[in-house]
Structures are given as structure tokens and as C-alpha cells.
């Protein structure tokens, strides 16, 4: 852990065993060591999972005990944050957990339940105030309203652009699927859009939309302006089109050619073929496209903060300007958590839509 005189200056390190009274620290340290040891046997994934949970519990305990103890008598502006050792251990234990889970391969329902459990625990810990003395949480408590606003903005950016891209992308993908020539010209254009660096893309939106706002009557009334929500949203939609269209095309082409021929041979119309054969067989691939877009957009939406688009990026860039690491974390941590949760939920959905045949085979 580090403790600093205020939130700007670099803190000084405090080793884990010295963050609080030895009697308080010992159980936490023991749990971390035990967790790591349990993680060693390769062939017992259940044991490793248990180890990861115990280890994480230990880390949490150290945070809860250490923060108030260090703050005591350290002055009003003093800040406590977890240091490099904490982040390393956290990463190792999370990897351990992910690896054990991959080995256990729980079913989609089980995974949903576990995710729910983890989120509930996390919510409980945050809500209980046990971590309130930590620096990140102090940044939070001084910005409650702004945080809620940023969260809403971030979700609107990520999910809104996903929905828009899907609404545009599905029909385009369908047309590309049916028309070889169209596919040949649409996909390269979308690939090109995808290669524009994200900062450049957001930057480009400014003059383009700015020009529209100035020259097209009524555009301003719709909220079109060089900076703000609209250009950020538009950039995200453009980035999303390629994965949506490409995966729609790939998904619709995933049905075995003989099954398509059989469908034709028995007298299905093109639309019946689409609904009864191509779409159900391609759904997992199409949803995988949406998963890519969602995770990508949750991350990219951070950059929207740069052009006044709102979202968690606002904190990240404010933090960068003020060299306040904790403010950066306040933007980054929820973004990472959001992306992780979305990825897991989408994976579960993909698995649930997979045809039974391929699931059992």
C-alpha cells in the first residue's frame, strides 16, 4: 500500500505486513499465501478455484484493515491506495480463478449464477463502506452525481451504438449474404473504417459534424455538433459496423451447403430458408459479432471523454490532466468491470443459442 500526504504527490510504500497491527494483518496474509499454495496442484481445478477465492478474500481483508489503520492521524488530505504488490496479486489470483473455471467448464446456467454471485458480493462490499477509506472511493464520494451521470452516458454510448450498428448492420449483412458483388465492395470499405486509429476517428468527427451543424438547417436542433455526445456516438457506430456485418455474413454462410440445398429442394422460399435454417444455424456467430462490438465499444467509449462525449472517460482524462491516479482509476475500473461482465453475459447467450446437436456432439 502507499500512503500520500494528498492526492497529487507520489505516495510512499508500506509493506503488507506493516499496514496495521500484526494481529489484524496475519489472517489476511495467511489467506493469500494459502490461496496461492492451493492454486499449485494442476489437476484439481476445484481446489484451485477455492484457493483463488480464499486468496482474494485475504487481499480484501488486508485492504479493509490497512486503509483505516494507515489513515489514522495522517492528516485530512492523506490518501491510501493499493500499490503494485496488490495489483500483481490480484492479477495472479484472477488468472488462477479464470484458469480453474476454464478447466471446470461449468454450463451456461451455472456461469450465470456464479457471475450473479460475484456481482452481488462486490455490490455488498462497496455498499457496506468497508472500502470507503480507500482513495478511489474518496474520489467517488466527492463525485457521486457526476459518477452516476457518467455511468449512464457510458452505457448509452456503448449499448446505443451497438443497437444502432445492429439495426443497420443486419440488413446490410443480409444483402451482402445474398449478393456476392455487394459483399465484395462493402466489406473492404468497412475494414478500412476499422483501421482508422480511434483518436483520429474521434478527431475527424469534429470538423465534419461541425460543418454539418453550421450549414444544414435544423441539424443543431437534433443535437448535432462538432463535439459532445453525437460525434462520439457516430464514431462508435462506424467502428461497430464491420464486426456486425462481417459476422452476419459469416453466420448466414455457416449452414452446411447440403442443408441449404435440401431446404431449396423441399420447396422453402428464400425467406423460409433464412428463418428456419440460415438464421438459427448462424445465430451463435452473429451474437459473437455483437459481443466483440459491445466489449470494444465499452473500451472505446472512454476516448469519447476527450471530445466531451461524457462517460467514464471524463474521469480518466481529468485524472490525466491533474496527474491524479485515483481519478483515472475511478474511470478505468468500472469500465473494465463493465467490459468483463458484458463479455461473460454475451458468452453465455452465445452458448445458449448454439443448436443442441453441436452442443452435445
Amino acid at each position, binding site marked *: 500500500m502507499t500512503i500520500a500526504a494528498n492526492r497529487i504527490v507520489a505516495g510512499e510504500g508500506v509493506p503488507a505486513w506493516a499496514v496495521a497491527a500484526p494481529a489484524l494483518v496475519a489472517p489476511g496474509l495467511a489467506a493469500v499465501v494459502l490461496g496461492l499454495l492451493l492454486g499449485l496442484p494442476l489437476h484439481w481445478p476445484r481446489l484451485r478455484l477455492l484457493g483463488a477465492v480464499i486468496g482474494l478474500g485475504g487481499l480484501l481483508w488486508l485492504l479493509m484493515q490497512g486503509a483505516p489503520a494507515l489513515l489514522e492521524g495522517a492528516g485530512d488530505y492523506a490518501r491510501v491506495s493499493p500499490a503494485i504488490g496488490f495489483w500483481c496479486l490480484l492479477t495472479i489470483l484472477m488468472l488462477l480463478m479464470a484458469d480453474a473455471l476454464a478447466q471446470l467448464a461449468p454450463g451456461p446456467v451455472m456461469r450465470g449464477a456464479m457471475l450473479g454471485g460475484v456481482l452481488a458480493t462486490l455490490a455488498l462490499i462497496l455498499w457496506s463502506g468497508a472500502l470507503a477509506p480507500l482513495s478511489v472511493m474518496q474520489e467517488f464520494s466527492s463525485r457521486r452525481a457526476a459518477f452516476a451521470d457518467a455511468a449512464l452516458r457510458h452505457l448509452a454510448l456503448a449499448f446505443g451504438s451497438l443497437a444502432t450498428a445492429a439495426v443497420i448492420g443486419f440488413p446490410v449483412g443480409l444483402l451482402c449474404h445474398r449478393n456476392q458483388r455487394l459483399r465484395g465492395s462493402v466489406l473492404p470499405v468497412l475494414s478500412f473504417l476499422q483501421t482508422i486509429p480511434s483518436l483520429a476517428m474521434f478527431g475527424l468527427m469534429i470538423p465534419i459534424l461541425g460543418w454539418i451543424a453550421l450549414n444544414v438547417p435544423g441539424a443543431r436542433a437534433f443535437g448535432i455538433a462538432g463535439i459532445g455526445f453525437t460525434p462520439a456516438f457516430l464514431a462508435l457506430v462506424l467502428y461497430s459496423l464491420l464486426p456486425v456485418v462481417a459476422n452476419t455474413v459469416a453466420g448466414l454462410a455457416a449452414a*452446411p451447403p*447440403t*442443408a441449404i*440445398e*435440401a*431446404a*431449396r*429442394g*423441399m*420447396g*422453402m*422460399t428464400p425467406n*423460409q430458408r433464412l428463418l*428456419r*435454417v440460415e438464421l*438459427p*444455424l448462424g445465430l451463435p456467430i452473429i451474437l459473437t459479432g455483437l459481443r466483440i462490438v459491445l466489449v470494444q465499444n465499452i473500451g472505446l467509449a472512454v476516448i469519447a471523454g476527450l471530445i466531451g462525449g461524457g462517460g467514464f472517460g471524463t474521469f480518466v482524462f481529468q485524472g490525466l490532466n491533474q496527474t491524479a491516479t485515483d481519478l483515472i482509476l475511478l474511470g478505468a475500473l468500472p469500465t473494465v468491470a463493465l467490459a468483463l461482465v458484458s463479455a461473460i453475459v454475451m458468452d453465455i447467450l452465445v452458448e445458449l443459442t448454439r*443448436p*443442441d*446437436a*453441436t452442443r*452435445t*456432439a
Partner: protein
Amino acid sequence: MIEIDRITKVYNGVTAVDAVTMTAESGTITVIVGTSGSGKTTLLRMINRLEEPTSGEVRINGESTLATKPHLLRRRIGYAIQGHGLFPHHSVARNIGAVPRLLNWPKEKISARVDELLTLFSMEPDQFRDRFPAELSGGQQQRVGVARALASRPDVLLMDEPFGALDPIIRARAQDDLRRIQRALGSTIVLVTHDMEEAIRLGDMVAVMDGGQLVQHAPPAEIVTKPATGFVADMVGDMERPLRLLSLVPLSEVMEDGDAPGEALPADSSLRDALSACLWTGRTAVPVERDGLPAGRVTLDAIRARAELGA
């Protein structure tokens, strides 16, 4: 009745099917046989308009296939695609019921039909109805593919190498099943194969294709005894000609009165079966039974005389 009238298909300058004319009578099996790439599949697919002919016309019961929209035409014609083409995401029952569902049959009627067909193909309905294609053996998949083509009781049935993936023993049984079902329903079947043995066994008429052209269209006995070209003769295979001929003649034709030792053969099995029984068990004659009662015997000499007659 299917009338194919000077039908031609050209793919970018390559003639896949070249002015083929032939007629398949109602209630018969016509087998189209030829080497790979000879245009069999293309010819078959022009009957239900999966391919549009470059020129020529097909009439079913006197009516041009061009008079009906292709998808409506196809719903009336059963089609078993080469390599089964089952829908991997649908259960066996849904696969078989696909065409009846397109035709808006009521649910109970469809499930009754599915069970009937599974039983017909010796697959226990309770055991197989809810399985997925990936959970079936190759032979079972093909049988479900054929059952699906039969589901709506079409008068006309097109089959593209339906028994291709089967091993010889199951294949013979599947062929017998098909023959039995066709006789019972009186359907008109056009079946494609590259196996002359299968063509002779199954066909009321055999159509031999070579390089897109129809080189001979005749009953199987005539194909064996009077091959029209060297190509047909090659397909039949000179060595096996007498045996193939014997497989076309039922025991009842050369049966004589009298008795013989050993296990009896039914009167409608072929001389080839009798010959193989004689050779295998070292007998010079086999008893023949009809409906389980002794009917006479067939001697090795009579079989030899019949084989020489054909040569």
C-alpha cells in the same frame, strides 16, 4: 409420368447434359447410372427446377414444370439430396416433418406420419424421434434423409445417390426397403447412382449417362445382355455379366418338381442366390418354398443352362 424432352444444360460453355430425352412411367423406378461427372445430378435437378435447363422442357403428368412456381413445384416432388442434407439444428422428427409443415398439415397428422416412417425404416420412433442428426450413424442419417423425402407422400420422388454412404450389407437392405415401399405406395422414382449393380437391382428401367448424353435407356436385362455401347458394356463389366443376369431371374422360372437336401430358398429369390447357396454348401440342387410350403427344387444344371442362354 415424367417426360424429359430434349433437355440441355450448359455451364459456361461446358455441356453438362446434352439433349436428353426419356420418359419415366408412373409407378416405376428409373435409375440413372453413369460415372462421376456424367451429368446425372444435373439431369435430376432439372426435373424439380433446382437447375433451370438451358433448353428443353420437363412435363409431369402432361403438365410443363414451367407452369408452376419452382418452390410450389418442389413441395410436390420428394427430393433426397446427395449426402442426406439433414438440418443439424432440428431433431429427427422435425427433419422428417419439414415438408408436411411447409404444406401446413395439422400437428397430430405430422407426428403420426413421422412415427409411421421411422417404423417403416426400422428405426424405433421412441428411441429416434428426438435425436439430432449428429447423434445418428451414417446409415441412419441417410434413412432419415430418404424418410424426409417421402414424408408428404409425393407421387414423384427424386433421389441422388441415397445409399452412397452405406456399407454393402445395409445397402442391400435399404434397397429392398425402398423397393418394398415403392411397390406399396405406387410412387414414381428417379434415382441416381454410379453403381451399375444398384441400377440393375433396383431399376424397372435403367438410363446410362456418358459425358452428358443418354447412351442407353432400357430394362435392366437388356442393359446386361445387349449393352448399346462399349461404355455400357464396361459399366456392366464382362466378367460379371452371367452373374448379373442370374440375379435378374427368379427361382420360379427354372423350378422343377422334386426335392433336394438342405435349407430351402423362397421362390422369389434369384438364381444368383441359389447358385451361391449351391456353391457354398456343396449341393447340386436347392429346395424351393413358397409361403413356407415346399414348392419344388432348382438344380445347378438348370442354373448353368439359363446362364448360357443369356450369354
